[in-house]
């Protein structure tokens, strides 16, 4: 039995210690907002937060996640009103949308550590999140907007 804390809730799961965290989150806990992309930490679709860091859940074993604080896209805000979610909506960022849970979770770490990022900072932070639809200009624009919203409301997570 493995204990996981996901979005401030405790879960006891029957899983092999080597099971990827992504499997546990999606298939055992039932939170399907986090997506499977490549399975080898190359695309960023599966990014979740572990103790505030943007880990790739497809290669993170549940044994590493045990006892840590995991945050998924479902837990980023209570009413889908995190500044990044508001900005994503405002800028109509997604096209197919598949990669955007990971994009937003990575962007959230950027804003937490750098509340006023430049374009260059955004590129450095987001270069590990791939978007097949090529929504990068809108991602960048939305991050700037979210940064502004955060500064106004003092919201970071």
């Amino acid at each position, binding site marked *: 039995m493995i204990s996981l804390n996901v979005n401030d809730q405790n879960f006891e799961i029957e899983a092999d210690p080597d099971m990827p965290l992504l499997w546990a989150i999606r298939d055992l806990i039932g939170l399907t907002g986090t997506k499977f992309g490549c399975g080898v930490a190359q695309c960023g679709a599966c990014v979740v937060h572990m103790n505030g860091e943007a880990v790739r859940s497809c290669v993170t074993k549940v044994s590493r996640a045990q006892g840590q604080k995991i945050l998924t896209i479902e837990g980023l805000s209570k009413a889908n009103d995190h500044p990044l979610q508001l900005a994503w909506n405002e800028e109509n960022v997604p096209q197919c949308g598949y990669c955007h849970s990971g994009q937003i979770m990575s962007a959230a770490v950027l804003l937490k550590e750098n509340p006023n990022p430049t374009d260059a900072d955004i590129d450095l932070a987001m*270069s590990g999140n791939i978007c097949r639809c090529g929504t990068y200009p809108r991602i960048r624009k939305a991050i700037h907007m979210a940064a502004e919203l955060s500064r106004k409301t003092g919201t970071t997570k």
Partner: protein
Amino acid sequence: MKKLLNANRGLIRMACIIGVVLSLVTLLAFAMNTEPKNNNPQKIMVVKDSIASVQAFKKVYSVLMSPRCMNCHPSGNIPLQGDDSHLHTMNPQRGVDGKGLYAMKCANCHQPTNTPGRNTPPGNTNWHLPPANMKMVFQGRTPYQLAKQLLDPKQNGNKDMKKLLEHADDGLVLSGWNPGEGRTLPPMSHADFKKAWTTWLTTGAYAPKK
């Protein structure tokens, strides 16, 4: 009176002879003891031999410049990847502490152990580049430059001789010989590398001419 003086002279002569004999015995005892004395276990014995030292460093250099070592000692701020030492895909940055930036920190993908499968992220509990204030660049260094750099505490992470010797068994150094599937090993075993490293340092740590 004369007799007394003669007796005294005799005693003095005898004392001198005994003194000389004892000194000789003592010197002989030291001379026969060929074992080097090392009263301080922290002190490292260095027997200078410039030829052996330079030859040993050639082996050390071949390992340090192999992708398994050099890829994390790049000349820029992006680590290298693969047997051809290309820039790491996704352009992760060194960051101040050598552990990356923002959502692109080393440990976000590099797990405590190797991830199964060919060319998946290799793992280590302490995966990182050298920090920004001590980059310890290997890429592009000649044997002479690298040898000098390795010996300079201001460029080698403040390592003295003892720490340099110990560094051969550092966990991240050892991981070069456990690189995960799809990556070639350094050009010799870790045991041979350690032997060459130790020989280089304990024969005077001479730098090659070029």
